[in-house]
């Protein structure tokens, strides 16, 4: 990935993960390509953030302490239909029907399986690649 290949990046990215270290790496990776990043640890805080401020893109962990990740995505879509949403999960295998169906039904714009490639995070934000970026 070279600097010249990177299209303009969205201004702010919302990261929803209850794992603080996970928030830290995503933030570091995204700040590195010029994004402003807001990290929150719960679905409730994600909803209030989106209500206050529009985010063009969000990374949402599949398992949150107060809500299932896919449920939160439905809520976020209702609040902000144009937002691009990437689901991240450590609870995933290739034939996980629920996530495959969500990708197919365009409920999510991309999926990242932990542990992931930093380049895949960057690609998801810049809109490069098909978004189905698991290793």
């Amino acid at each position, binding site marked *: 990935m070279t600097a010249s290949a990177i299209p303009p990046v969205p201004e702010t990215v919302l990261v929803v993960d*209850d*794992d*603080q*270290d*996970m928030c*830290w*790496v*995503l933030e*570091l*990776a995204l700040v*590195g390509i010029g994004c402003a990043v807001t990290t929150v*640890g*719960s679905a*409730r805080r994600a909803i209030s953030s989106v209500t206050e401020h529009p985010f063009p893109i969000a990374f949402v962990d599949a*398992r949150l*302490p*107060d809500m*299932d990740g896919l449920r939160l995505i439905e809520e976020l879509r209702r609040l902000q239909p144009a937002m691009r949403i990437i689901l991240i*999960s*450590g*609870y995933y295998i290739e034939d996980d029907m629920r996530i495959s169906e969500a990708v197919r039904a365009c409920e999510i714009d991309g999926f990242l*399986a*932990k*542990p*992931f*490639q*930093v*380049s895949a*995070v960057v690609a998801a934000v810049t809109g490069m690649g098909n978004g189905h970026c698991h290793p």
Partner: protein
Amino acid sequence: MATIPSSILILDERLSIVSVNHNFLEKSRASLSSTLGRRLHDIFPAAFQDTALDQKIREVIVTGKTLHRQRMTYRAPGVSLRIYSYSICPLQLQGGSRGAILVMDDVTDLLQLGDEVRRMQLHLASIVESAGDLIISTDPNGAVMTWNSAAAKSTGYSDVEVRGAKFADRIDEPQNNEVEACFHRIAEIDDRRSVEWPMKCRDGESIPVSWRLSRMTDHLGDVTGVVVVGRNLVEQRAMEAQIRQGEKLAALGMVIGGIAHEIRNPLGVSSAAAQLMKDRMRSPALLEECIGRVIGGIDRASLIVESLLRFARPGPIKETTTVNVVDVLKNALMLASGEAAAGTEVDWNLQRAVEPLNAEGVQNLLELVVINLILNAFQAMPNGGRLTIGCWGDGGSVVIEIGDTGPGIPQAHVSKIFDPFFTMRSDSRRSGLGLSVSHSIVRQHGGSVDVRTSPKGTTFVVRLPVARDSGDGTADAIEEGVPS
């Protein structure tokens, strides 16, 4: 002779009728005048004539020997079959000539009754034989009298082999003593209650059987025997085991899901931090931070694996250190605080002691225990509430209390909360392993976990042994069994 219900005929040598009784005339609907002097085969209904009655009467007259209780059947069209029992006795007639007396009884009803009784007996026997349950009868002392096919099939012993033997001897030790005692007090036995005694089989194995004993009594109420009915529980047990296995697998699936999530998080952090290091070579501070995250993530993954192993193979903890319990509580709260709902307050309730509260143990394991208890408290208060963290010394123990103001644990669940995989949460995020791992760790430390719960909240109370070098020698005194 008129009142005798049998038909009686007296015959001479030529088989002519000398005399008949009232019953015969009535049955044959004939008059005395039309009968006397006639030959037997003239007055006997044709339906009887296939019987060699003439021949038999002649033999009795010639031999002088009585013929007892023969049977003949009366078959005539349109009339139901009748059966007669008859006897022929030799007789000296007036004038010295020889004759015979024929006595006939209609035994049709009697025979039919006998058949019915036999059929009923066969039916009852077939019920006992066809039953899937073991049906055994014994005398009042418990010696086997009958033993049905189900008993033979279940044990491999035939009824011949066990008849007369003590029923108690068919039961495995040590329950056979209980059986013996049961027969000694047979007058008091309650036949509504069933008991489980394992039964010995021919192959040396024993099978689980649920038994019910009932007394057989005579009209005076004395015990004449005992009916012992047993239900073979082998299949039921196999089915229960299958269900348990299925439940275990389902629970295991949930746990594995939780583990995958828990381990892939730190793996994801380590992996991403390592990848980011490439771009941070010129910034030593950032590089250092990335390296720290890589190592931290690996340590976290390793700690998860360790707590799983500790759960799988609990054993005594050997290498303990002095652990400052207040530090444990503070670290645990910091790590768990991300899970607290908005509006959650924390109340600290620490002993106002000058010296620190030290326990003997492994710091990171005790942190894991407290993290689990705090997470549980937060989960019990999804809309906020008050978390109480208390700690004080109590003789040879350090007591930790973690309380919430949630809805409490239903009484039916209290006994299960420390079971592995038990969870009251409907979503699959928490594996239900937290409390059981905590319990297991505290037990390995030589401590205990108790719970107090009410609809106003739940408090977990953890007791840990006080640190050995805590200065007052309390722990040593406890260890040596010396009262402090």
